[in-house]
């Protein structure tokens, strides 16, 4: 029995994982279908746009700024080992736009947006507010989930774009202020080096990460257990899952864009 129990555990977790994947996929498909079918709730969408998009700007901007600055320093110190310090603008640009911009923004959105959506919806579930919505002829998938997912789909790419620019600006500031780069040449190098596909991949990642972040918050919120413990668990699970899925999706998308 003791020898077999790890196998049992493995089997159980595999089954649990498969079941959860199925449930989340169904939930996501349902959520998308509600985005396209009336009734729509414009006020809820507006609130979600503000919460997910506008109010996330400071944290995403700060993250990008410091990441870009640190990136410039690292590339400079790494590059100087084989006399390639001059590549700082190009590598900062591509590193920020293709990789760090979307990933850092995605993870910050998971921390900020996924957790708050999960906690809010789970609390509504626990205090019977979701039941109350249903009895008031309002579908929670339409009223709570669809606006949040749509808002994330629309705003997170914009956040990523802004983050990319701020990140490059961070690298630029460090390079010009303390590494002795020429400001005009730095900018010229950045602009010349980036290709449209780099930017498209950045924004596409942003859209995917936004949807993952909002969807996980909604799913775990709606699936919350009872009581304060249920809410805590839903929040924790949602952020964990969103962060892992964002990193996995990043790897997959990088692979896709790499092969293009």
């Amino acid at each position, binding site marked *: 029995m003791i020898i077999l129990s790890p196998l049992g555990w493995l089997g159980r977790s595999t089954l649990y994982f498969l079941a959860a994947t199925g449930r989340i996929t169904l939930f996501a498909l349902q959520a998308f279908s509600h985005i396209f079918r009336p*009734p729509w*709730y414009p006020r809820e969408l507006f609130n979600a746009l503000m919460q997910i998009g506008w109010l996330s700007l400071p944290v995403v901007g700060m993250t990008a700024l410091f990441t870009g600055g640190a990136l410039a320093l690292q590339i400079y110190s790494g590059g100087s080992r084989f006399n390639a310090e001059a590549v700082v603008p190009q590598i900062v640009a591509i590193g920020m736009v293709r990789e760090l911009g979307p990933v850092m923004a995605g993870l910050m959105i998971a921390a900020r947006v996924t957790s708050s959506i999960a906690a809010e919806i789970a609390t*509504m579930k626990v*205090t*019977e*507010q979701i*039941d*109350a*919505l*249903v*009895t*008031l*002829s*309002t579908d929670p998938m339409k009223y709570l989930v669809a606006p949040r997912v749509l808002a994330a789909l629309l705003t997170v790419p914009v956040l990523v774009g802004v983050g990319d620019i701020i990140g490059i600006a961070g690298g630029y500031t460090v390079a010009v202020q303390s590494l002795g780069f020429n400001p005009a040449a730095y900018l010229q190098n950045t602009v010349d080096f980036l290709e449209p596909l780099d930017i498209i991949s950045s924004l596409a990642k942003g859209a995917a990460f936004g949807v993952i972040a909002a969807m996980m918050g909604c799913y775990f919120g709606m699936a919350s257990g009872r009581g304060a413990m249920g809410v805590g668990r839903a929040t924790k699970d949602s952020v964990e899952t969103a962060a892992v899925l964002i990193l996995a999706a990043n790897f997959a998308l990088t692979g896709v864009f790499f092969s293009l």
Partner: protein
Amino acid sequence: MIRMENVTKSFGQKHVLRGLDLEIPRGTSMVIIGGSGTGKSVALKCVLGLIQPDSGKILVDGKDARGGDRDAFLARFGMLFQGGALFDSLPVWQNVAFRLLRGRLKRPQAEAREIAVDKLRRVGLTPDVADLLPAELSGGMQKRVGLARAIAADPEIIFFDEPTTGLDPIMSGVINDLIREIVVEMGATAMTITHDMTSVRAIADNVAMLHDGVIQWTGPVADMDASGDPYLEQFIHGRAEGPIEAVR
């Protein structure tokens, strides 16, 4: 008319409803009593489809409650939740007028607000609470806002889950009168859960007592005192000793 036939519901190993039969004629007021945790709230939620019963039939006006147009079905109902279940992101008046601000019963905002303020007045709340958030109200006030929301769209069928719990005796009287009025004047069908025997006598046409997952006794409120049912008698008189084990 609402009819529940042999409804069962378990949560894991816990058998909450074990074959519930209950009938509530149109335009009458049914009060459900029974010990804490016997499944009264679960029974109400089964009728509304918020909880799926494991087996049994629930008919509303002869039609299966689960099939058909859910929207049209729910539009006939009003429900006061035991915990109030107010939307804490919306001010009080928008909670009350929730149904009147969206969906098929939608009407102009000013009109919806007017109705909300009127319903608040009927549950003993002044118009100045309309713009507060639910979190700024006391427990009893929240309960009454929940009640106002349940009756806001003048539903045909209203469920009240412990409408007077947490209210002072005078306010309880006001709410009892209100529920009675809704049934008598508006012809609504009401199903009320309460532990308050004064309420039972004030509100009920019929009483049903839930015990051990089934209806232990049901009948007109007038027959309640002479029922001869030991379970019911223990309950109405609040005795610790009797067939219902109070300490387990």
